[in-house]
């Protein structure tokens, strides 16, 4: 069986911006793994092939062993085709069953099971052709498998997912080093410290309300309190952190201050004090000292998010923090509004006041206004430096992808820049 993950359609992908601007949705995290890792486990395979938007194919191909956008994978075997938004726990298919497709409420294909013998019934020249022809040629059913629809779905499920993932991983105990004096609250069975991880003295690991999983080479500095459920990824460092419940911190992060029910994708820094709650932070983000986000409105009403800069989306939750795209940097003292959309590759300076709820990608936010700043070339230069500090390389494929993102995000940004200029003039 060949598992194929696909990322689309475009209007549904856009609901995962700014985080999905630079990666397929299945690379997002929830619990201790990415969505794709869960889908692979569910399908019982160790690798997949995938179809992603063309503009990111080159950059993504550098980061995966999978075949990317290669139509050759559409022939020669049974095909299990899954949309990356599907929740793995809800996927139920019969390997021995006949070919069929599952459609969402808009009649769009969420999954397809195409037996090898039926491949001749569908067009397999391109992935889009295959999906369309499968809908027409194969029996279709309305799909009741659950999906993620927005980034905050991942954040709001994260605590429970960490608990479920830890149970599935079945790991427990101290394989690394836990220096004394320290304290573990709750059951020691709910704590896993992987080989190479070091927990310094004066650290409290509180597993009373959920498991704590510290992955390989994690370092936890003194005066950190980690409340489960919590996952800390490979080679990340906690620096006297108030790590409240429900956090997933991806690999190679530096995290201090107070963090609650948030997901940090990886390679990002929030070294200093400041509160991050119910947030999803991308890769290569740097949050300056005292950067803080609101995740709760004063009137306790549902949080809305401006995904496109214009139309508020009701999250249905009273607690949603910031969505922060890759490579964005904040100065000291930045204050993000409740449910703030903070684009990728943005540079944000504090004003002493709460910033606008929507900040476009590639914005230089100065004096609370969106400006062109020093342009994308300077942002790329900073990105290269940030990546090289962690032994990662900014490649031509990365630059091509970001150039495409720059163009995709230009119309909304240009409007914001003009609005910002008028505001500056009125000052």
């Amino acid at each position: 069986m060949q598992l194929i993950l696909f990322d689309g359609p475009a209007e549904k992908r856009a609901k995962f911006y700014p985080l999905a601007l630079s990666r397929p949705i299945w690379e997002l995290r929830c619990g201790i793994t990415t969505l794709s890792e869960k889908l692979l486990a569910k399908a019982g395979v160790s690798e997949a092939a995938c179809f992603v938007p063309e503009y990111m194919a080159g950059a993504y191909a550098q980061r995966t062993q999978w075949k990317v956008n290669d139509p050759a994978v559409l022939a020669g075997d049974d095909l299990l085709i899954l949309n990356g938004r599907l929740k793995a726990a809800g996927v139920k298919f019969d390997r021995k069953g006949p070919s069929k497709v599952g459609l969402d409420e808009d009649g769009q294909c969420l999954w397809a099971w195409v037996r090898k013998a039926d491949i001749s019934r569908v067009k397999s020249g391109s992935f889009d052709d295959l999906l369309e022809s499968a809908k027409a040629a194969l029996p279709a059913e309305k799909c009741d498998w659950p999906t993620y629809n927005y980034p905050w779905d991942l954040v709001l499920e994260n605590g429970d997912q960490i608990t479920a993932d830890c149970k599935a991983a079945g790991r427990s105990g101290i394989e690394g080093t836990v220096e004394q004096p320290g304290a573990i609250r709750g059951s020691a069975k709910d704590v896993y410290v992987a080989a190479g991880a070091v927990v310094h003295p004066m650290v409290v690991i509180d597993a009373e309300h959920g498991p704590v999983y510290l992955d390989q080479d994690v370092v936890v500095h003194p005066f950190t309190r980690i409340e489960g459920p919590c996952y800390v990824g490979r080679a990340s460092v906690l620096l006297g952190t108030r790590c409240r419940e429900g956090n997933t911190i991806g690999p190679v992060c530096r995290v201090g201050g107070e963090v609650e029910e948030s997901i940090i994708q990886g390679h990002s820094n929030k070294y200093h004090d400041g509160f991050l709650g119910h947030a999803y932070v991308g890769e290569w983000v740097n949050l300056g000292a005292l950067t803080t986000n609101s995740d709760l409105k004063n009137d306790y009403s549902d949080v809305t998010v401006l995904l496109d800069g214009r139309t508020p989306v009701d999250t249905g939750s009273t607690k949603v923090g910031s969505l922060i795209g890759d490579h964005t940097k904040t100065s000291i003292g930045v204050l993000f509004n409740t449910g703030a959309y903070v684009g990728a590759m943005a540079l944000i300076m504090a004003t002493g006041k709460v910033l606008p709820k929507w900040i476009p990608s590639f914005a230089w936010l100065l004096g609370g206004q969106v400006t062109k700043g020093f342009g994308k070339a300077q942002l790329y230069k900073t990105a290269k430096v940030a990546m090289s500090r962690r032994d990662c390389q900014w490649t031509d494929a990365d630059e091509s992808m970001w150039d495409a993102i720059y163009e995709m995000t230009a119309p909304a940004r240009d409007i914001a820049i003009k609005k910002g200029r008028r505001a500056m003039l009125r000052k």
Partner: protein
Amino acid sequence: MATVSERVKTVTARVLAMDPGQIKPEQNFAADLGAESIQSVELVAMFEEEFGIEMDEDAALSVQTVGGAVEFITRVCKEQGVDVEE
């Protein structure tokens, strides 16, 4: 209509909180007028708004002096079909 030079001085004075009469063409925005990097970005934005033009940020930010800004903006206005008094 005020000349490009007069308008550049007016905008510069407003952004840097100075008297327009103190601003000379040979003066360097950073070294002589004390413009911080953020103010340089604000100057570019204000020139765009004042003249109704779009400037390439790299090219605009490479301009060092007030006189250089006048020349650069005059050229961009011509390229973008904006009438100005030279």
